[in-house]
């Protein structure tokens, strides 16, 4: 028994190590891909940020200085290698637009975004799960049709438009919430309270949560239908268990794990949606920084954001795999063979 247990632990360790290595390799590849894409771009950083008129008025030396600053004359491989070595030593470079270290900007923007992302992730998961359970409990019933319809409509709606409609209704017409930004306009940063921040993040978080429910709701519904048609439910019914008891004791437990796993794997969707939603609300988060960096050709910042978000997404996927691996014995067996 003990031997077997140790064996299993060792196998699990090897599996986990492999997964970590794989994720690390993928992150390196992500950085190479991102760097490649940025460096083949025909968009001239000088034209976009300085402007044609200003460039025309400058002397040759000034232009050369600017070109060196934006890295126009250095070959891409050299630039990538120097960036990568600096990155490994913990130096993520200096943002060309903000003229501050990338790590500092990322920390600040992530600090703004993290509550937004986290609350949207939790809310969409909880609501989606609840709706999916409700729908799957009685297939074809009115709740089922409502939830399926709702999910379809939400899936067909761009998240930025959801955000715009919420903005129109609750901020412009009803004036319940502020129109944009992460903090009150004109307030000193020390004077901003947590309540202010939450108040400003409410609408963006709501838009993101709504945009995220459809996949989890539909997925949970499928699983719930499967469970409700199973023989153990039939047997429980025959024993005379109440519907509430059926759902809580047999349904809930069986569909919780796939739902949590799916939610971990959908981190990427929520981050992607936040890019759009933050743009609508001018919320100073990671997504907005990505758009600014992309439009302005700020390579170090864009790379930093890509690597950071890819790392978050891979940790989400890893967590999903790990959950399955630890909890579901069938997969564990399949994985180590």
């Amino acid at each position, binding site marked *: 028994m003990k031997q077997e247990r140790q064996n299993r632990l060792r196998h699990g360790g090897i599996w986990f190590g492999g997964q970590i290595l794989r994720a690390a390799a*993928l992150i390196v*590849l*992500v950085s190479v*891909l*991102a760097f*490649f*894409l*940025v460096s*083949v*771009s*025909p*968009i001239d950083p000088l034209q976009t940020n300085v402007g044609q008129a200003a460039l025309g008025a400058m002397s040759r030396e000034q232009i050369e200085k600017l070109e060196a600053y934006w890295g126009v004359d250095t070959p891409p491989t050299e630039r990538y290698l120097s960036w990568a070595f600096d990155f490994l030593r913990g130096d993520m470079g200096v943002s060309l637009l903000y003229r501050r270290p990338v790590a500092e900007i990322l920390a600040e923007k992530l600090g703004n975004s993290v509550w937004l992302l986290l609350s949207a992730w939790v809310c969409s998961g909880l609501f989606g799960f609840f709706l999916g359970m409700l729908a799957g409990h009685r297939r074809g019933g009115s709740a089922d049709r409502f939830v399926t319809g709702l999910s*379809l*409509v939400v*899936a*067909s*709606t*761009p*998240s*930025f*438009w959801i955000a*715009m*409609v919420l*903005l*129109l209704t609750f901020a*412009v*017409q009803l004036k319940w919430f502020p*129109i944009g930004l992460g903090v009150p306009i004109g307030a000193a940063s020390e004077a901003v309270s947590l309540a202010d921040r939450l108040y400003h993040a409410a609408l963006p978080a709501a838009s993101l949560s709504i945009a995220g429910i459809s996949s989890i709701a539909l997925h949970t519904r499928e699983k719930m239908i499967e469970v409700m048609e199973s023989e153990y439910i039939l047997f429980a019914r025959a024993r005379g268990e109440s519907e509430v008891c059926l759902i809580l004791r047999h349904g809930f437990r069986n569909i919780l794990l796939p739902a949590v796993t799916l939610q971990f794997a959908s981190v*990427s*969707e929520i*981050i*992607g*949606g936040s*890019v*759009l939603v933050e*743009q*609508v609300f001018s919320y100073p988060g990671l*997504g907005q920084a*990505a*758009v600014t960096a*992309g*439009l302005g*050709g700020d390579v170090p910042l*864009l790379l930093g*954001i*890509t690597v950071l*978000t*890819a790392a978050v*997404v*891979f940790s989400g*996927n890893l967590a999903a795999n790990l959950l399955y691996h630890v909890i579901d014995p069938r997969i564990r067996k399949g994985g180590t063979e």
Partner: protein
Amino acid sequence: MTGTKKTGSRRLTMLVLLAFAVVFLGAVVWLGEIWQEEALVTDFTRKNLAPCQTHPFGTDWMGRDMFVRTVTGLSMSIRIGLLTACISAGIAFLMGLAAAVMGRLADGIIGMLIDLVLGIPHMLLLILISFACGRGFFGVVAGVSLTHWASLARLLRGEVLQLKESQYVKIAERLGKGRFYVAFWHMAPNLLPQFVTGLILLFPHAILHEASITFLGFGLSPEQPAVGNILSESMRYLVTGKWWLALFPGLLLVAAVLLFHYIGQTACRLIDPGSAHE
């Protein structure tokens, strides 16, 4: 008796609705083509009008009719959506097939590519690719086509791996048929249903992502009529209460995407013999 009658009438309703959806979307594309000049007509005597009978969607700050603009924009989005969905489904098909046929190394590389594309948040990868292609029409088409193939490719790859174990493929191999012969003559026909379903379900995604990337400013240039552009312009006028600039174009976009969803699901159900009696 009544059972068959009911099934028949349901199939008929489905067909009628399907025809309606196709006609509606076709009309949007066609009208958009015709109204290209009209969408640019400015008339300052009628600027900032709220929706009324002559201008059902209102007019903007330059007196352009929003209904005409929205339809032209949507027509553009639908055409880009169709194009990009076809390209990315094609990529997915080739990748899925290649992963299974070209040996372990190719399989590993393609698996890695799929993970890579799925690992970067969709919007971010779109921004990167569109930036790499210099934005504009080409940037959007490249961006949307190169980001949507991964999940379908994963699906097709799984399917091919199963097919590889099937008897007739093994027999064909023993008979000395080449890898490519087996791939195209024995595997591809079996992948077709999955492929068609995947392709149709890609349309709505492609349209939505085209609108989103244009909205952010990485897509079609601002002078082109596109739903993303219309909506991002309307952002500036939202606060002053011009709600119609954002509401109606968005609604029409959602309607078009929903109809595509509907067409996709219905077509799949009509094709699939398994659900003929539902």
